[in-house]
């Protein structure tokens, strides 16, 4: 277990290093010039060159990357070009909001998706099953900004149950979480359904029935833990998809998280912030996968972490 975790941590560091290199290279190759953004349109060529030298952007690629890595090791993600503050601070101030949104979204999609999948599997072939699967398909295929605007229109504008945007109370959290969760819920519903149908066919389910167990015990004690394993592995991967969705959803709802930060930074070619947010996202994905893999053996004793 310890050895396994040790190995995974080393792997994770390597992954993050790779992500940083690729992102850095992509931003370096970007045709947009950050210095022009900082200096403004009316700046003279000398001013532009000065800023470029100040930021160290005149150095060769690998020197730049090397400097970035060195300061990264001491937890320094650099300074924002535009906002004139430390990227680390910016991200830390924004991260709680995004994490909250992520937790809310995961809870939404698990609650909706797993229930739908479970019910559909148990009632397989019935009208309930078909209705749920059509619903999940709609959830999967509708773009998030459409879902977000629709929810806003119905629940905030028309019904007035939830605020239109902003951050603060649990009421603010509901609509953005739902918007993010509905996409995932569709995936989870489909996955849970097929996984559950698979499990319901197993010999040990027949044994459980032959023992005279109640339906609830059969489904929740015998089937669910077996069926949920692939879903757990999925949650780890899902965090990556979240990071994409968070940019859209935070913009729609005016949610002050790192998604918004990233959005603004991309518009202004604020490279240190883009790098910082990318690395934090990558870290979240790596951590999520690691957690999912670590939880698995507690559900299925056959899985050994080696």
């Amino acid at each position, binding site marked *: 277990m310890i050895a396994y975790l040790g190995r995974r941590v080393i792997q994770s560091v390597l992954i993050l290093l790779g992500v940083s290199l690729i992102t850095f290279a992509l931003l370096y190759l970007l045709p947009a010039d950050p210095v022009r953004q900082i200096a403004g349109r009316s700046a003279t060529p000398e001013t532009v060159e000065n800023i470029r030298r100040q930021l160290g952007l005149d150095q060769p690629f690998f020197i730049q990357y090397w400097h970035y890595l060195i300061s990264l090791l001491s937890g320094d993600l650099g300074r924002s070009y535009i906002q004139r503050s430390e990227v680390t601070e910016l991200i830390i101030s924004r991260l709680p909001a995004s994490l909250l949104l992520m937790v809310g979204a995961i809870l939404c999609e698990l609650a909706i998706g797993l229930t739908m999948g479970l019910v559909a599997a148990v009632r397989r072939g019935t009208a309930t099953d078909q209705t749920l699967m059509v619903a999940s398909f709609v959830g999967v295929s509708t773009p998030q900004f459409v879902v977000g605007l629709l929810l806003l229109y119905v629940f905030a504008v028309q019904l007035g149950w939830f605020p239109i945007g902003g951050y603060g109370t649990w009421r603010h959290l509901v609509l953005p979480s739902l918007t993010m969760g509905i996409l995932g819920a569709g995936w989870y519903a489909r996955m849970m359904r097929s996984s559950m149908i698979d499990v319901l066919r197993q010999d040990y389910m027949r044994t459980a029935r*032959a023992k005279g167990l109640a*339906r609830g015990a059969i489904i929740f004690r015998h089937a669910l833990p077996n069926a949920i394993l692939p879903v757990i592995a999925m949650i780890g991967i899902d965090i990556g998809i979240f990071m994409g969705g968070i940019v859209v959803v935070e913009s729609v709802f005016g949610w002050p998280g790192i998604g918004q930060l990233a959005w603004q930074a991309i518009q202004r070619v604020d490279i240190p912030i883009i790098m910082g947010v990318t690395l934090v996202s990558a870290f979240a994905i790596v951590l999520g996968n690691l957690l999912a893999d670590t939880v698995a053996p507690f559900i299925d004793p056959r899985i050994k972490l080696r």
Partner: protein
Amino acid sequence: MSKGATSKRTGAPAPAVSVTAGPVLEISDLTVSVRGEDGERPVVSDLSFSLARGETLCIAGESGSGKSMTALAIMQLLPQPAARIESGTIRLRDIDRGDIDLAVLDERQMRRIRGDRIAMIFQEPMTSLNPVLSIGRQLVESIEAHTSLSRAEARRRAVEALKAVRIPEAESRLKQFPHELSGGMRQRVMIAMALALKPDVLIADEPTTALDVTVQGEVLELLRDLQREHGTSIILITHDMGVVAEMADCVVIMRHGRMVEQGTAADIFARPQADYTRELLAAVPRIGTGVGRQKSAEQKSVEAEMPGSVAVVNDLHVHFDLRGGFFGQVNRRVHAVEGISFSIAPRETLALVGESGCGKSTTAKALAGLVPYHGDIVIGGRNLAGLGRDQRKAVRRDVQMIFQDPYASLDPRMRVGDLVAEPLLIHGIASKEERGQLVAALFERVGLSADQMELYPHEFSGGQRQRICIARALALRPKLIIADESVSALDVSVQARVLDLLKELQREFGIAYLFISHDMAVVENISDRVAVMYLGQIVEMGTRDQVFSNPRHLYTKRLIEAVPVPDPAKRRPRFARLDQEIPSPTRKIGEDPPKLALKDLGNGHLVAVS
């Protein structure tokens, strides 16, 4: 779980012997039908039988005879929604409430019967226990489902049940998970679970089919002993007439959903009335009755002057490395095959026998080039080790395989004609038209007709599919065919015909067989020479007569003794037993297993000396 009415039991032991007369379970005119594409059709028709207290009733028949459906109908566990009980009654004797007709009970009422009054164990011990719940949890929950015992009392009962099925260290087993136990152990846990509440009836659906023979004996003996102690009535469903003879008081023979014959075990075996029963009994391979083939030494010598052996295996090792530790280095190794040597002459059948995990299939795979190995494999006089890729491929053309599962070994998306032609295509032999003619000829040869070439595998029965596999193996005119449990999945009557076909082909084409099987009776029927494997090594090898008439190694003796004899008169009170479970072939690096030395007892009868 619902309490009240179900909690009629409270820890107090049930009276050991009941004095009720008459049957515990009485089935009359039971018809079960399954809805398929072409409408509803009966899978069990007008079945009637009764089960007396403390009696063992065997339902025997081949696949598709409706025997499992009968069992599931009694438990109301028929596959939903396709199958249903169409008519008939299933009466369970109930002293308190009068007889109950199980056929009309709703799910809720039926749940109280299941596990409590009628328990069931299944064929597949490997998959019948829930992998994510501990043994204890699974035992305790079935006790709790039907009693009002406290958790601690239920646990105590669970330990008792495990002790009753002779599981050592019962207490500590409760914490274990199914994957930590062997197949035999798991089946015992299933039995413990079924018998924990002392049901009136135990339905055992092929309970030993998936187990090795020595383990099978132990499980059968256990069932007999428990029945004697508790007075349980048993319905034993099996295709194995040996098991029937060993266990049954009464026998019901089924075919195509109908009862063919019913009677006491002694009568059925000694004086079978129906033709089908006679055929079924005749098809059963028996050890030591000399139905094996005639020694056709003269016949052979006509063309058997070919020099040398078809295949020579010398000091073959197959290891699988297991990784572990921080850097994932190799720290343990499965010694699947550990230095075995044998040779196969043209027109000869060498049988490799042994129990699961002994390395017999791995040996076959090495020979067919499917796993990496150490040692020498010489085919047709050419050592594979010294050859390049293309040459190896050419040599391997002479070695073909037929696998166990005729359902899984044919690609369902290909026409069977193309499947048989595929080896020719791969090795670039013959033009398209010639291939068509060759394949047609092969189809005719294995007893199929050429116009079936256009069909897909699912349109054939198991026996026919195995014939297709044989045709495919024959396509390249191999010198050696490896048959890995090739008839194990087939019904006895089909099995007998496939074995006959294999023998005919051997006579006709002079093929040698490496015949791998766990079934000693089949091996005796087909083999010229036999090699017995145990833990990756050969413990005894000799001609069929040497090994079967004069087994010298303890393990060989046990293997032969453990086979149930299809004759109720020869029923054994005790089965041969291994002192312990077969140890694991996995060892730490550097700890190589001791190598057995083989001693020649004369005329090539080799026996391991330890």
